[in-house]
């Protein structure tokens, strides 16, 4: 291979990707970060403000509320998705009848446009017209009714559940793929040694799936920091921005309040957070592998 790795090949083959990526991802980010140091309404000239937007951000109560909500969603979605999608993958990896149909159906939410995912769930979670509270009523358990969305408490948890629903099949598929990579003879050998199902999973499967697990983890982390349509459709960030996530809050500042500069400073912080958490995660897991 070494003698084919000529410099001009490397450069030639990398250039198209790097060029498109630099012009349409990196350059826009730089421009957006640039605007985060200005006051700009989207029209006319931007006015340089220095770090004023960032100072404002740290004093902004709503920023901290959206931060808190995003972290709730992150922790809940991370734990639920990572464990349950792994367990479901273990289940569906058995030779059961109609298991392919089940896999396909579980994957299906991932193909619906996120906007529609939001609309569907409004009809399930809405405190008045949603199916959950109506069923609780019909069962005579009205006491259990909650403002699943649109209240002050439950919204981020509900968003996490919706996100879970949307991503489950996608991640299950990745885990099943990982399970298929484990050579059968390894598992056979374990069986002969008389390991219980739990031991098999704990000491054989999980260690062998480390790289799959970290792919899934990275997809969950970066995904959570992009959740937008689900929130927009279910609560619109309300009541009074209390269920806002970092992305939706930054959207509302940018486009609804036409405060493009401040919106971009929020977006920059969100982007950095996502990068940092992904970085910390890879750092932690890398240490363990050694």
């Amino acid at each position: 291979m070494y003698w084919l790795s000529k410099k001009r090949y490397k450069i030639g083959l990398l250039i198209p990707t790097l060029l498109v990526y630099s012009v349409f991802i990196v350059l826009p980010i730089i421009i957006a970060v640039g605007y985060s140091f200005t006051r700009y309404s989207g029209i006319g000239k931007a006015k340089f403000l220095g770090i004023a937007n960032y100072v404002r951000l740290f004093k902004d109560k709503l920023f901290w509320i959206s931060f808190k909500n995003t972290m709730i969603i992150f922790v809940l979605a991370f734990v639920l998705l990572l464990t349950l999608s792994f367990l479901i993958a273990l289940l569906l990896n058995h030779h059961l009848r109609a298991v392919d149909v089940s896999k396909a159906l579980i994957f299906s939410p991932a193909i619906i446009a996120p906007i529609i995912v939001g609309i569907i769930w409004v009809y399930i979670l809405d405190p008045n017209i949603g199916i959950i509270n109506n069923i609780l009523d019909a069962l005579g358990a009205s006491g259990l009714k909650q403002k699943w969305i649109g209240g002050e408490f439950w919204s981020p948890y509900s968003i996490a559940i919706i996100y879970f629903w949307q991503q489950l099949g996608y991640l299950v598929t990745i885990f099943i793929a990982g399970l298929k990579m484990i050579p059968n003879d390894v598992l056979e050998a374990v069986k002969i040694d008389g390991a219980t199902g739990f031991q098999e999973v704990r000491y054989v499967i999980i260690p062998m799936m480390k790289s799959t697990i970290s792919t899934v983890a990275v997809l969950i982390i970066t995904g959570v920091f992009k959740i937008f349509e689900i929130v927009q459709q279910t609560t619109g960030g309300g009541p009074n921005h209390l269920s806002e996530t970092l992305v939706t809050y930054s959207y509302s500042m940018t486009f609804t309040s036409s405060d493009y500069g401040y919106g971009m400073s929020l977006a920059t912080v969100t982007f950095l957070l996502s990068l940092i958490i992904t970085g910390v995660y890879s750092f932690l897991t890398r240490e363990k592998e050694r």
Partner: protein
Amino acid sequence: MNSKRLKKWCSVAMVSMVVVGTLSGCGSSGKESSKEGDGGEVVINFGIHVANPKEQESVTYNIVQAFNEKNAGKYKVEFQAADTESHSKNMKLAASDNTLPEIFWLDASEAPKYSNAGVLLDLNDFLNENTEIKAALGGMESAFTDDNGQYGLPYQCNVQGIFYNKELFDKVGVAYPTDETTYEDMLGMLAKFKENGITPLSIGSKNSGFAMWEFNETLARYGWEENIDSILAGDKKFNNEDLVTCFEKLKGLAEAGAFPENMATIEYFDAKQLFNEGKAAMFGTGQWDCAEFDKNIGEKIGFWWGPTFTDSDYDQEVAMKVPSAPIVVNAEVAEDEEVQEAVFEFLKFYYSKEAAELSYEGSIFPATNYEGMSATDTQYAMNAMLDTLASGWDSPSTAPDLTVTSAVQEALYNSLFGVMQETYTPEEALDLMDEALENSK
């Protein structure tokens, strides 16, 4: 091997040619608005804030159709349509690269920024040439003037207040509200509706901060118009005695259970649906919903400005017939005489008596006032409005929520709904507005 390779290269070449061909072919069709139409007429674009004007802004659609028919072969107006949110983004982007349509709708809180950026045409010349239109507008155009001149003209005229369902009032035995009905009377009304399991006043806050029209009247009756200039100038705070009293009234409504329980998860459209279905007794909105009410509620509809406040020092005899958002003209239009002529011809038609008639037919109040305009007997909702307007009270020159720029406007909406949903105390809510004003300076 060689012929195989040749074949492969040929097919690659073919594919790339097809791709390039389609790319360039579509490139030319997707290009900027061509000024010449198929029949040699001058084509002007009208950027509008709904994706489907035929259904969603039918009056404007009809006026444009009538204009196009009348001027076939000479001028043609084409819509550039997108939903409100996309439209607002699109216009900003278009302003940055000079691709604004010739005429377009703008949110009133955003238009001054466009004017400052110098992308809008001063329409003073147009008004001075067409004095009959100026007279018909009757001063309504003054809402859209600044140092750069007449940057826009009112798109329509909004009449905002509370519609009520007479049938439900009869059912619970409450008298219909009148010009004299006070806030205390209203609280009594609410209690009756609550007892009977009817939502008193339907409203939704999800993505619908703008849907606070009935409270423009409330703000006006606590001296908004009198004080806003000194507040914006920094001489006074939003958190002042008058507005605190005003916001306390909203709090009172919330405590009396005036609003739907799920107001946080329903949008304005859903709230309207509750009213249409006869599940809510009152709904605050404007004339744009008339046609829908005629269909759903019919002759049982009534219209009311909202309660008067005995503890307010300000004039209570306030109507709310105000200019809606402006339509504006791209400054570049002046560079091409033919286009300018077409645009002015269209504006002339848009503000003509003929267009006003089309407007009344669709239960929309045009920005113009011509003699002898009236609604037909079956336009119940519009007639209800006309009855209320008959008292002849003065309106503020601009609706309160349109007197401030977008960031403060957003804060106002957030504060109103925050008090109504009891997430903020009146003082907290007003502080947020002061903060937003401070941040936007």
